[in-house]
């Protein structure tokens, strides 16, 4: 695909906030897949960037399921060359649409679901979701969230679906590679994308890519994939202290030193767990 073609997949100029990771992410996805796609998603931040591929919208709580219907119709019509992309934020994916997504995965609907995770209900004005991290400020957790971020990736992995991956925009090759791989697999694919949100996370809009990179470098967000149950870590950066990721974000401004230590310990234990799983199959007896 020519550069012009890539640019034509998503119209220039968007209605998202300055520095939003969303349009960067969706552009990478369309670049990976080209024109033979149909998008499905609820109303949300993602819809603020206009894509020039067919898009179908249902309610916030319809996560994945409309895409499952589209995939079923395409199968009946024998249209096998079209990829059905289901978009939703972390609110849709991990909260109100979680049951639907779980059902899509259990049925092994032939779709790619992309969880565009900006760690909160950002379109409605920064409210907590179950994907909001521990201690983070939101307008519904004004003194900081008291529980940990739901591990949706592992929950989806235990639906025994063929492909699961994590991604973030600061690692575009890793990101695009995973989307391409998913498109080549039959059945339900889940890609969880960390999308830093300058508005909700309270950092300057020019630092989006830097925050995305720091999330991986500090192991606050790990990049890996689970193919037919086998875990593979795709990025193993030299670790930086998690403080470097937390400090630039206003949503963590109120954190005391013990809070940071607690988060560091959690991040370390998560990484240890992931490393232990690296190269092994989750679904087989350990």
């Amino acid at each position: 695909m020519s550069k012009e073609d890539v640019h034509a997949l998503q119209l220039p100029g968007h209605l998202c906030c300055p520095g939003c990771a969303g349009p960067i992410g969706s552009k990478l996805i369309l670049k990976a897949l080209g024109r033979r796609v149909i998008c499905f998603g609820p109303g949300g931040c993602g819809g603020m960037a206009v894509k020039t591929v067919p898009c179908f919208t249902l309610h916030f709580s319809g996560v994945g399921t409309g895409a499952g219907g589209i995939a079923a119709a395409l199968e009946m019509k024998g249209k096998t060359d079209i990829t059905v992309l289901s978009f939703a934020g972390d609110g849709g994916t991990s909260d109100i649409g979680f049951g639907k997504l779980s059902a899509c995965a259990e049925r092994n609907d032939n779709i790619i679901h992309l969880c565009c995770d900006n760690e909160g209900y950002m379109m409605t004005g920064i409210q907590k979701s179950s994907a909001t991290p521990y201690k983070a400020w939101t307008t519904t957790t004004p003194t900081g969230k008291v529980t940990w971020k739901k591990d949706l990736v592992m929950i989806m992995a235990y639906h025994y679906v063929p492909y699961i991956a994590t991604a973030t925009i600061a690692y575009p090759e890793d990101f695009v590679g995973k989307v391409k791989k998913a498109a080549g697999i039959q059945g339900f694919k889940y890609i969880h994308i960390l999308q830093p949100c300058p508005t909700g996370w309270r950092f300057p809009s020019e630092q989006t890519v830097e925050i995305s990179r720091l999330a991986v470098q500090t192991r606050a967000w790990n990049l890996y994939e689970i193919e037919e149950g086998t875990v593979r870590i795709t990025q193993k950066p030299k670790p930086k202290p998690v403080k470097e990721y937390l400090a630039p974000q206003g949503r963590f401004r109120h954190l005391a030193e013990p809070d940071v230590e607690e988060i560091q310990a959690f991040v370390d234990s998560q990484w240890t767990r992931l490393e232990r799983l690296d190269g092994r199959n989750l679904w087989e007896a350990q």
Partner: protein
Amino acid sequence: MAVRKLMDGNEAGAYAAKLARVEVIGVYPITPQTEMVTRLARMVADGELRAKYITTESEHAAMSICAGASAAGARVFTASASQGIVYMEEVLWAVAGQRLPVVMAICNRSIAFAGSVRATHSDSLLQRDNGWIQMYCENSQEVLDTILQAYRIAENRDVYLPVAVCLDAFSLTHTAMPVEIPDQKDVDAFLPPYRHEYVQLDPDIPQEIVYGPEPDDVTEYTYQREVAMQNAKAVIREVDKEYGRRFGRPYGGPLEEYRCDGAEGVLVTMGSITGTAKDVVDEMRGRGEPIGLVKLRAFRPFPSEELRAIAGRVKAIGFVDRNFSLGSAGGGIGCVETARALYPMEKRPTLLDFIIGLEGRDVTPEQVEHIAKRVLDAARTGKAEREVEWVQLRS
């Protein structure tokens, strides 16, 4: 060759979906709809019907599956009832707004505040404002025939609205009656393959199909849907006529007039009560009492013009409401709607409302006769002794 078979409303619904060659079926079970969708599962498993049969985790999802599949060009079917209709309501509005010709059977069941599974029309009538066409059936044969008609109505380019085909819990869903199953090739001649002229999810002609247009366009989109609803009136009539020609069973379009000639009072019924009421009308007519019956098939679009024409010839109308709208302007939803339809008439008949059969409570011929007599009393005196009567209310 058409064949005759003893079947209940649920099985008739499943046969209709099969004859319509539906391509995607989104399913979530609920009493009393269950046998309709499990029958379809069997048909797909046995290779009698080539369709994607999709089990979901909720009615909301079942309708979302239908929405996506319909937008992507498949003919779709689902069925639900009661709490299921309430749970999928969010999607019902979207489907109508997106002008998707989804067809759904609603196995009318009360909405629980007490947990009954029996017939009341509250579940479908709750959805009367969202752009779904609503058709009510008297028996299993009409269920089958109306579902086939529903696809032709929904997929008409001047309509493109979803259709709900309603059948009463148990008295229709679970009661076996003789049904003539039309021949597949005759159905194919009546119902061509589905192709939406406007909504197409196709990478070669990219469209964005949203559920919420820009605020400044909402008035126009709403008006367009109302135009489609009004267009549906003629389409319902034409499709029913054509169906009658092809299969020998016309139903009168949006409503059926039963022995209204020379009637001074008429009952208006919806659903399975009609059968009992027709028997009562026959008997009373035999005794020379001037009573007639109007079976309302389409509640949406509401056949105001037809009702007005009948109202111009009679002195009293009694609406038999198997529902109630708490705190309404007076009575059940059918009566309130009828009052608006008749209001512009210079000389209006007396309008009475009868609340009956809630939660599937048996409606006896004696009770219907009581209603008919009240209507004839009003026709004679020009007055309603009681505007709203709860016929079966225990004192």
